């Protein structure tokens, strides 16, 4: 079946020439010299006044990276990246260590205002917002401000930039940094280890339910600059945190590199919910410019009964290479992945997830919806594996994709690997396997099979998306109403 008219129109609103965040902010910046070498790694470390162990860690990563090759297996095509042709550090000059929001360069505040990101706590409290959100705003290579720090501190929650964490909480950083995504993990992750500049650090103490949503907003502003952020979230026993991430970049003709690493650790009974609205500049209608988004995100359900849930809405980037994963190590732990990826213009998306079942009675669920239009290519790539000892592991995967027009492509590449006789994995693209009971219930009330299925799946995704705060949810909300009609594979 072909896509219905409403869907076509909704996707058009998200087309590459409709990009609303493409403006630039003129600022005086402090930059590292162009290029990538050991000196640059030392330069970044010195700029951040990092301790020796951090510098050694970076240098070790850089030396390893030199011996590695770019991965070729993803379904994305792009000219070879010249890693020496960009800046690895750029920070607004006027922003040297602001104490309060008033010290921050008004031009930067203005930028966030334009993007609709609330940085002033009193404004947030004024009542327009649905719920309170603490924001860490990362501008090019530095975190400019983190809101609600004091209020969070009262609950024992640490929410700061990773640079501050390296200084103020070195034991936690030393213990967990690189413990989920090892330095040697992959080409881009290793590069990130060497040159990461800023990102967020979250620590939720035992038994604490984080009193508000935490979020980081990433903005690339400078020309020719790569952004390499690093996020580390630790949830102690019995704690809960919901974290969200948003990203945009100005419209430029050259491609910019973004290679982030996100590590999550959930101990016994802890739960981490991580949501992303990725809206990097996708390039223009001719496929010129746009962000190369090579991201490694991984959560480790280290404790028993822990839970990690990834939700992503992907509409931006010229190239997306991203597989938020869960290592289900603790017994009874649970991993979830909900994704909506929309590609337009010449965008190329190769995204999905990995669910690695190691512990007993671990469960995972993957719901992925890909929509491709224009001349874009949209690939779902996901791996589900059960280790020999993962008794009673369960997975359910459902990925649908929708094509709009004859010049785009939608692809599905699932990997299901089971080494345990009691593991049950189900992967489906057909709609018949959604809970028969629910389907029956809906059909009894007069809905057709397709309407019933759409209702169930949309309701399911909606559940997750509705929990995103308003300012992030606009795009997301638009997408969920998209009909399942005409979906394939």
């Amino acid at each position: 079946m072909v896509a219905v008219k409403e869907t076509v129109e909704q996707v058009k609103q998200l087309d590459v020439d409709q990009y609303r965040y493409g403006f630039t902010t003129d600022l005086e910046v402090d930059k590292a010299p162009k290029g990538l070498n050991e000196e640059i790694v030392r330069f970044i470390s010195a700029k951040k006044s990092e301790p020796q162990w951090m510098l050694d860690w970076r240098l070790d990563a850089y030396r390893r990276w030199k011996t590695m090759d770019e991965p070729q297996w993803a379904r994305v095509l792009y000219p070879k990246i010249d890693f020496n042709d960009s800046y690895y550090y750029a920070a607004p000059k006027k922003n040297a260590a602001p104490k309060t929001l008033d010290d921050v360069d008004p031009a930067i505040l203005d930028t966030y205002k334009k993007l609709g990101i609330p940085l002033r706590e009193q404004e947030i409290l004024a009542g327009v917002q649905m719920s309170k959100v603490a924001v860490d705003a990362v501008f090019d290579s530095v975190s400019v401000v983190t809101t609600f720090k004091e209020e969070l501190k009262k609950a024992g929650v640490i929410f700061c930039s990773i640079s501050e964490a390296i200084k103020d909480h070195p034991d936690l950083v030393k213990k967990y940094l690189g413990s989920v995504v090892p330095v040697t993990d992959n080409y881009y992750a290793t590069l990130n280890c060497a040159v990461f500049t800023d990102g967020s650090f979250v620590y939720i103490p035992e038994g604490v339910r984080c009193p508000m949503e935490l979020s980081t907003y990433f903005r690339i502003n400078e020309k020719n600059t790569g952004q390499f952020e690093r996020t580390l979230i630790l949830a102690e026993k019995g704690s809960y945190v919901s974290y969200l991430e948003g990203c945009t970049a100005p419209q430029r003709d050259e491609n910019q590199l973004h290679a982030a690493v996100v590590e999550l650790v959930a101990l016994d009974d802890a739960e981490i919910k991580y949501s992303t609205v990725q809206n990097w500049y996708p390039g223009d209608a001719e496929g010129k410019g746009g962000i190369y988004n090579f991201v490694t995100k991984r959560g480790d359900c280290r404790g028993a009964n822990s839970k990690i849930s990834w939700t992503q809405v992907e509409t931006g980037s010229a190239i997306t290479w991203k597989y938020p994963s869960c290592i289900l190590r603790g017994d009874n732990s649970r991993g979830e992945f909900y994704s909506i990826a929309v590609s337009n213009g010449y965008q190329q998306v190769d995204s999905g997830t990995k669910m690695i079942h190691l512990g007993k009675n671990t469960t995972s669920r993957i719901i992925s919806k890909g929509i491709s239009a224009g001349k874009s290519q949209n690939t779902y790539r996901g791996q589900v594996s059960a280790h020999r000892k993962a008794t009673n592991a369960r997975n359910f995967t459902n990925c649908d994709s929708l094509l709009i027009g004859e010049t785009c492509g939608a692809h599905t590449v699932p990997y299901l690997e089971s080494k345990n006789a009691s593991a049950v994995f189900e992967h489906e693209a057909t709609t018949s396997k959604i809970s028969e009971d629910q389907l029956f219930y809906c059909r009894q009330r007069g809905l057709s099979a397709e309407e019933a299925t759409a209702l169930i799946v949309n309701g399911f995704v909606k559940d997750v998306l509705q929990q995103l705060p308003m300012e992030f949810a606009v795009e997301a909300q638009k997408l969920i109403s998209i009909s399942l009609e005409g979906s394939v594979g």
Partner: protein
Amino acid sequence: MSNITPLKTEAEQAMIAQGASIAADRKPAFARFADSGLPHRRIEAYHYTDLRALLKNAPPPAQAGGKVTIASPLADIDAYKITLVDGHYEASLSSTLPQGVKLQSVSTLADDGADEKGVLSPDPVIALNAAFSESALDIEIAAKTELTKPIVIRIVTTGAHASYPRVRVNVGDAAKAFIVETHEGGVSGSLIDSVFELRLGDHVEIDHLRLNLVDQSATVLTTFGGAMGRESVYRGHNFVMGGALSRHQIFFRFEGEQSKADISSASLLNRKQHADSTLVVDHAVPECQSREFFAHVLDDESTGVFQGKIIVRPGAQQTDGKMMSRAIVLEDGATMNNKPELEIFADDVACGHGATVGALDEDSLFYLRARGLPKTEAEALMLRAFVGEALEKFEHDGLRDTLESLAEAWLKARSA
């Protein structure tokens, strides 16, 4: 680290040495193989079957004149028989063919899988066959020929050597035939790398059975390349029981509109067997329909691999493709790797795939046992039903009975 050229393994070195005196027309294929070496896990299509690691040695190529000592598993079936012994055509073990069917033994066949245009894909296992295959069978089924009996092509291996059987069947327009390909024999140390090419015209109706019954200690790599014209029907059946290490490749392409292909497979594996089923169905033209059903039963420490891919090319509108893979893992030591892929470049299509991996359903087992069946019998009953799904589409009663009794024997051996 690909900037460091990996050393050739012992098997690769031996194969390259064997190719030193190869005939000139096979040199390009040999060069392609020598260049890439044996495929390994970093080559995506061989991720789960790392031949560089799994193939420890390269036996010498077989000479003509091997003696066949085993009886055909299909001896009772009334069929036209063609026998290849160690890759060489054996006239004394072959029957006279009916009118409309011509057979020729030639030294080489044109399509060596050098590019995407041929029926065979660029693939190192095909290149290896093209390099070393010294004789090939070219079979022609004339247009409008309707065969009443199956053509059984026995591919027999007699010893610890390497054989490279190569068969091509051209089927003319509006012909109807049943072609069976059986892989038999072999010992520990045998390497069989066979390539079977099927070119189908318009309005044909073809059944094709591939049977892997080689010894459980041999290595067998089989490739089937098919291309079909318009308004035709292809029914492919695959049955895998043999080989310590085996890979069964299927590359099927629709070249004419409104055709249908139905491909099914059942693999019964035990001990340390490793069997890989790799399938690529290429919808190059609009309005075709394909159905794929692959079943794996994995016992002991066996490993099953299913890699299936449906490609819908730009413009291949109204394509209807459905792929299903089901696997039953009976023991914790067994492994199933599933990769059902879709690659779609047209918007008005209905394609789907499903894959399941799991144990036998506990509730059903309980139900049967509550009715007095011992555990092994209850399991056998359920497995029979599971495998039956792949066999039921079979329209030739005699052959279906043979397959069912082979499956039965496998289940009996398991319960014993």
